[in-house]
Every structure is written in structure tokens, then in C-alpha cells.
């Protein structure tokens, strides 16, 4: 079939808006897409709607307290305000105690950050203030109610209540599914991939699972959280670019990398990201919810 580049949407049944100026996105060809997007975003409400497309994230560490919550904060507090939920893969929530053999142990899903905060500040405020545990819990209780266990998560169950509770990052995750899972330790990555297999992949929904290896202390969690935000921004940029292309008609116009879909770009994005953060060894796979 003869192809007319000026009629990019000839394959779809979209009613033809009158000719430009200003050009609506449907009629703009792939070639001038990049240069005109900026203008279009402000000019066109429909385009603004597509641009608000965001990947949905999930951060995971062992206790859903330090590393995953730092990343949760970074992702939900970013200018893009990503939809984000967070989990721990351990059997119990373990926080440092007065000595290495006396950790403070709580159960997942039923203890709130606030409870932990109150209990520990009652026990020994000086100790837990100085080792940063209280600061951490204070941050966490402003983000969401309490630590959740990954293995108990049922993907696809709506999380509307989290939205009403005011959890940060809850906007966009009402459907209970995510596009990207980022773990903070190889053991957690193994646990997540294994658990997704056990869950039976019933939703048929693809999910990219990354690991970014972060040491479990406050400083590293902060550096790691920023690096995760960087990764998230790069991934989202690619996803938005894919979303903006209307149909594969526009898509055949581009050449080389421009034709690649978001999914295909993922290994490349991770490799580029890894060059910048050689101290945070990363890992990735494509799994199913």
C-alpha cells in the first residue's frame, strides 16, 4: 500500500481535524515530532493528558524500612511524582536493637511505623535517636501506614484505601499493579522473582524487575535512592516517548533506536545507567504479575 507521510494517522479512524496551524499531534509526522512536542505540550490539552503517562513503580528491600522507603520517598517526591508502592521480603521487620543479638522485631502488615516509633522512643530515645532509627521511622510514617510484605501482596487487588489514607505515591497505583519493581539487594531480587513464579503469573501482565545493590545503612540508602530515581526517570522518559507515538504507522517512520519500543530499550537504559553508577551493581529480568 502506498504510504503518504503527511497522513500519519491514515490507518486509524480518528476524525480528521482541520489542517494546521497549530498542528494537532495526530497530523504531525514522526520527523518533526521531537521538535514540536515541547510546544504541543502546553498548547494542547489532549497531549498534556498523554504526557502525564507515568510508569508505576514498586520498591522492595528486606524490612520495608530503610532502603525501599528512601526510594519510595525519592520516587513519590520527585517533580514527576511517580506512582509508587513498597514492600519488604523478609519474614519479619527487623530493626537494630541495643546489641546485634537483640534486634527489635515486628510483624509485617499489622504494625504501623507510628507504633514502632512510639515504642522505640519509649524504650531508649537517646539510643534510637543517635543511630537514626527514629528519624527513619518518622520519615516512614509520613509516607505510608506501615511495612508491607511482598509475599503477601496480591497483585490486581485495588489499593483505593491507600489513596484515601493519604499514602505518598498512591495516586496511580489504585489498580494494584505496577510496571517496574526495583529491589535493593540480590536476595530480595531472588525472593521477588521466585515469589512471582509462585503467584502463578495469573494477570498476564509484564513487569520489569530490577535490582540495585545498596548497603543497608542510611548514607548508602540515600545515595541509592537518588540513583533509583535517576533510573526511574530514564525508564519513564522512554515509556512516555513510546506512548506519544500514535500507532505503529508513525513508528515505521523512525529509524534505528527510535523504532525500538520501551521494553526493548530497557537493557540499554540499564547498561547506560550502570556506567554512571559502577558501585551499585544492577540486575534485571522481565517477569509476570
Amino acid at each position, binding site marked *: 500500500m502506498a504510504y503518504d507521510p503527511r497522513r500519519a494517522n491514515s490507518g486509524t479512524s480518528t476524525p480528521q481535524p482541520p489542517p494546521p496551524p497549530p498542528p494537532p499531534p495526530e497530523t504531525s509526522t514522526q520527523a518533526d515530532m521531537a521538535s514540536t512536542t515541547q510546544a504541543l505540550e502546553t498548547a494542547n490539552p489532549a497531549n498534556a493528558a498523554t504526557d502525564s503517562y507515568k510508569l508505576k513503580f514498586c520498591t522492595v528491600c528486606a524490612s520495608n524500612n530503610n532502603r525501599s522507603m528512601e526510594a519510595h520517598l525519592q520516587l513519590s517526591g520527585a517533580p514527576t511524582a511517580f506512582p509508587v508502592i513498597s514492600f519488604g521480603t523478609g519474614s519479619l521487620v*527487623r530493626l537494630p536493637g541495643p546489641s546485634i543479638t537483640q534486634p527489635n522485631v515486628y510483624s509485617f502488615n499489622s504494625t504501623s511505623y507510628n507504633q514502632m516509633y512510639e515504642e522505640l522512643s519509649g524504650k531508649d530515645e537517646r539510643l534510637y535517636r543517635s543511630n537514626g532509627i527514629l528519624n527513619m521511622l518518622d520519615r516512614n510514617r509520613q509516607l505510608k501506614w506501615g511495612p508491607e510484605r511482598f509475599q503477601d501482596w496480591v497483585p*490486581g487487588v485495588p489499593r483505593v484505601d491507600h489513596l484515601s489514607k493519604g499514602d505518598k505515591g498512591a495516586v496511580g497505583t489504585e*489498580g494494584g499493579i505496577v510496571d517496574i519493581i526495583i529491589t535493593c539487594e540480590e536476595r530480595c531480587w531472588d525472593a521477588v522473582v521466585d515469589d512471582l513464579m509462585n503467584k502463578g503469573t495469573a494477570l498476564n501482565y509484564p513487569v520489569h524487575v530490577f535490582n540495585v545493590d545498596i*548497603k543497608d545503612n542510611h548514607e548508602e540508602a540515600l545515595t541509592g535512592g537518588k540513583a533509583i530515581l535517576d533510573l526511574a526517570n530514564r525508564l519513564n522518559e522512554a515509556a512516555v516517548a513510546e506512548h506519544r507515538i500514535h500507532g505503529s504507522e508513525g513508528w515505521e517512520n523512525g529509524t534505528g533506536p527510535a523504532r525500538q519500543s520501551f521494553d526493548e530499550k*530497557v537493557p540499554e537504559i540499564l547498561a547506560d545507567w*550502570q556506567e554512571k553508577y559502577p558501585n551499585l551493581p544492577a540486575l534485571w529480568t522481565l517477569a509476570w504479575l
Partner: protein
Amino acid sequence: MAQPMDNVVDQVAQLNAARSLVLGDAAFYPQIVNGILPLVGASTRLELRRWGANFLAETFASPMLAVAQKEQLAPNVLQTIREILELPETDTTVLQSLVQTSASLYPLVFRHVANNTDRVNNPQDGKSWETMSAIKQDILRRMDSFPCPVKLCCAKFIQRVVQVQTPGLISDPRRPDQNETSLAVVPRNHAILSIPNLEAESSGLLDRLLGVFQEETSDALLVNATLNCLAPLIRTRQSVANKIINAVLEFYPAKHARPPFTPTIRVSVKSMERTARALLINILKKNPNHPLAGRMQMYIERLMQSRLEATDDASRKRGLPNEPTDGLDNAKRARLNALPPPMLKIPPMAPGPASFDRLFTLTEDTGLSSFDVKQLPIDLVLKIVVPLLSQVNDSTLSQAVDAVRTRYQTITKEQNLQRQQQQKAAAQDEDDDYEPEYQPMDVASVVSEEASAVAAEVADLQPELVSLGPFVLPQPPPLSEEEAGEIGRSAVARVFGMLNAAETSPAPAKGQSQQKLGFARLAGSTFDRDAWSVLLARLATRAPAGLENDQQTKGDVRKQTTIAESIRETLYRFILEDFRGRLNIAIIWLNEEWYNDRIRMKSAANQRDDSEEDSEPTVALNYDTWATRLLDGFLAYLDSRDIKVLVRFLSEVPEVTIPITQRVASLAKDPERVNLCVQSLMYLVMFRPPAREMCLNTVEDVYQTYEESRPAAGKVLTKWRPQSTVLETAANAAPEQSEAKPVTSEP
């Protein structure tokens, strides 16, 4: 121009509000889904189609919406999906969501159609299955031309179809609603779903799915997506599990990567390796005694040593943490094993006279080398040594062995030199107080001197061994007959133990090797399960053949069972424990019995020729007894679907006898198994000419005795014995019977 745009924005906002409603309360789903279908269907704008497809994917994946409601919504939704696909749709996002929806819908529609056999002619069911099939064909046909994200979802769709169209476990036949959706829930005579066709299709699709592991250059996305969706198949579909695992075990990601090894390729290869590992670990965790467990372990270890991984880690990994981040951080430590082993530092041999302990001492630590291991109790040593041996690194071991070998060679060279010098010295100066006990039998000669020199040499090396002197085991006390029997039985029990052990060892390897051997195979040469069962059967038949006769002739009427009988008894029980799985052991055994009977009849005949006037040696025939006993044993447990088991047994036993056919005929007593009986007899009639007459007689009997068998048995008789008198009499009697029995013959 802003008009249509605003319209779309408004509509999307309304749709989003509707979505919030159903997320809050799943009860609204039916209303909303039916309401939005016309708004987001084939003829609407891209934004709306995207929204709709996404919403449908979410709806049919949602665990909140009951299966029954999803089934009700399915027909309308299917129609919409088909229309959108036939546009043809080209937007990646829409396609992706539609394929996801189809994957969720497939089991629902399948189950609905499979369960409604009573409404065979229900046009609604027929139509939704037809639409579903059309969607399936469309997806499969276009899969390879789809953009990558859609292709991934297609792979998942294929996995779903395979899972549905492969027989699964029936957990409880009395409660069909609780069974998982699989081919096993489809009735055999379903009007729309033909089991063989569906099975064939799913087998083809599984090959297509696994084909991704054989590509020249792997697509990491597709490989990972496939690996990650295989676990449920392996777990719930026994019949294809081993095929899938083998396909994964043949796949080495590093081999499928082409240089240059850019960072992107490294990421891809590493991700495939780790995902394959995760899958196998998932299987092993579920079933640590899996028959392929050994191969899976080896595969995992080999992946850990992958060269790409090694270079990758060396350059990228930061140093080990100063202290473990928590008490149980062994997972990361273990990775050290993957590094190439360090070169072993071999110190020169300790000075002083050569001894075995010096020869083998490869450490310079005096504390270690002077430690007397004999102080430790033997079981403690075992506890330490066995795990140590399993962890010995190959290359370290070969380095150490090489070191010891070169040491040994230098020592022997030196000693040869010394010996020559000593001989020269001995020739000049005879000095035999070296060996006071040595009494030469002959006159001392050069030869004996040489021997003594060598002996001296050996004595130097092995003082303890030489001083031990010859050791003769004392004669064992004579065994009583009972003891001998007891020991014999325990030996047999151990062979049975091997049979059980071999059963759990890898099966496919066995299959391959046997195929290769073909006729060149010797019984018992492969040390697999079959070999052990041949060994047992021969132990029972050939080895003690004739011994029973001796006992009888001696008039030895003790009731003690002979070893052969006890082996037979045990074999019999062993087979009956799982006669479907162990049928081939039964066949091997019966063949041996039959052959043994022949041989003994022949030798008995020879004996008779030799000693004519003597009493005729009788031969106790075992084949008939045991064949009928086995058949009796499992006939009771056969159900109407076991036709393959029975036919295999009947066709592979060496001889079909009248008692056997009678046993088979008795199956017809049970109305459910009439067909089983007639079909197996028909098989014998068709493919076992020597037994044909016998079987036709039996079929006649069956025909006469059991009325339920008439339709099937009648067909056999009209084909193979049209002149049969039974048919005529039955034909005459038929009119009365058809009047007498309309109620029972039409269930």
C-alpha cells in the same frame, strides 16, 4: 477544532470516574463493562481504544471480579476484541492490552464451553468458542510481525493456551467446580472440543514457545519473559514438565551472545542467566527429589562460572563488605566459588628420607603436617571429609595430583640411581645382616641379591606394610540352610532397593542411551531400572531353575518357600503397587518366565531321551501361574480409560492363553468396562494372529453372556467371524430384547 479534542478529554475523565467506581466496589463491573464497550470499540478514537483495552485487561485480570461474572461478560467482550483486532489494529499499547485480555479470557471461555456439554447445541457457547478461536488464530498468525512488547504478551498468551490444553490434575472428581481449568475437565465426547486436536495444538504451541531457547542470537526480553512464565506450567503439568526443563537445561545464554560484548549485551546475558537460575531454583525448592535435580544443580553451577559473568564481576563488583550486613549473609560469600581457583603453591618436598607422608604433604604449615589424624574418631573424619570432597575444586585437585606425581617421579629416579650404586657396593662387600630373617632357599645368587636389594628398598618405603606379613581370612562358619535362605533374601531385597533407587534417577538419559544401543543392548548392561528388573527376573527364573525339582525328588516337603518363589512374590507385589508405571517390568519378567519354561521343557525332553526308562522329569511351569495372577491382581483396578495399559500388557506378554482371555472376558461383567474388554480382545484379534481364534471364541462368549457388550462385540464378530452362529441366534432374539430393555440401554 478544539471540539473533538475536548470531547475526548471529557470522555476519558468520565471513563476514569467509572474505573474508580469499580475499583471501589467490584459489584459494578458488569454494568460498567457493558456500558463502556460501545464507547471504546473498534470505530472510536485511539485514546479511547487505548483506555478501553487497558481497562478490559485490568478487568479480566482482577482477582476481585468473580469467575462466574467474568464468564458472563466474556461473549460481548470477545466480539469487541475481535472487531478491534480486525481493523486491523496497529497501536502497540492497544494490541498489548488486547493480547493480555485474551490470555485472561482463554481459560474462562474454555472452561465454560467444556462444562456445558448438556447444552451442546447452545449457539451462544458455540459462538463464543468460535470467536475465541478466531482471536487465537489471529494472534498466533500475527505474532512474529508484532512489535516487541506485543510479542512478549503473545508468548504469555501461548503459555496460557498450553496450560489450558494440557491435562492437569483432577484434585477431586466429585467436585468438578473446584478443579483447575485444563484439558482434563473436558468430557471425552464433547461436541465442540476435540481432545486430540486441542492436545496436538498445545504441543505445537509449546514447541513454539520453547523455540526461543534455540535462536541463534537470543532476545533477552523474550527469553526472560518465557522463563518467567514457565514455572506454573512445570508445576501443574506433569506431562510436559520434563520437556520444558530439558529445553531450559540445553540453553546457555552466554553461547547465544555475539561479540562485541557491549554493556547492553552483558546486561542481557546476565539477566538470562539469573532468570534461568531462578526458575530452576524455584522448581528444586518445590520438589528437591525431582528426577532431574542432579542435572539442574550442575546447570546452575555451570551458569555461575560463566565467563561473561566472571569478567563482569571482576570489573564491576565492589569489594566485599567489611562485615556481614546481617548475620546470614552467606548468599554473597558463596559467589567466591565462581572465581577461577588460585594457583596452588607447591613447596619443595621436605628434606630427609622419603616417606609417603612427606610425599603427600603439600602444606608448609608444620602444625598441620605434624597433626595425627588418627586421633580423631572415624565418624568425625567422615563427617568432615565427605562434604570437603564434594567441594574440592577440579583444577586445584589436578594441580595437587600433578605435584605429587612429579615428586614421586623424581624420588623413583633418585632411588634407581641409589640402587645401582648399592648393587655395585654389594658386589664388593657382602652384607646380609640387613635382613636377619631372610633364609635363601637356593644358593645365594646374584638374582636373590638383587631381590633382596629391591626388598630392602621397599622396606625403606613401606616399613609397616612389610612387617604385617601374609594375612589369610579365616574360613567362615558353615551356613545352615535357613541362614543361607535368609541371606539370599536380603540380597534380593537389596536388588529391589536398587530398582527403587534407579526409578528416581534421570529417566530421559536412560531413554537416549537405550535408543542408541538398539539391538546391541545386553540385558543388564546399562544399570538403569530396566537392567535391574531383568536381573531380578533372571534371579527368580534362571538361577535356581531345577533346584526345586531336586528338593521334590528328595522328598523334601518342608513348607519353606524357596528363594525363587519369594522373589516372584516380591516382584508381583512391587508391580501391583503401581502397575501402570511398572508394566514394563511385568512384561520383562513374564518374558523371562516364559523363556525359562521353554528352556527347561527342552532340557527335560533331552533328559527323557537320555534315560528312557527313568521316571519322566516333570517341569513346573511358572509362566501361566504368574501371568494369570498378575492379570487378576490389576484387573480389579483398571478403569475404563486404561485401554492402553491393558492392550500393552496383552500384546507384549509372550503368550496369550485361554485363562488370560477368560480373565479379560470377565471385565465385561462391569458395564463401564465392557468397551475396555471388547476393544482389547479386538486388538488381539487384529494384531495377534496366533491368538485370533481363541479370542474370537471369547468374544462370542462375551457376546452371549453380557448384553451390554452386544453393540461393540457384534461389530467385531461381523467383521471377523461373519458366519458366527451366535450372531444369528442373537439377531433372532434381538426384537424381543430391544423391547424388553429400552430403559437400561438408553441412559
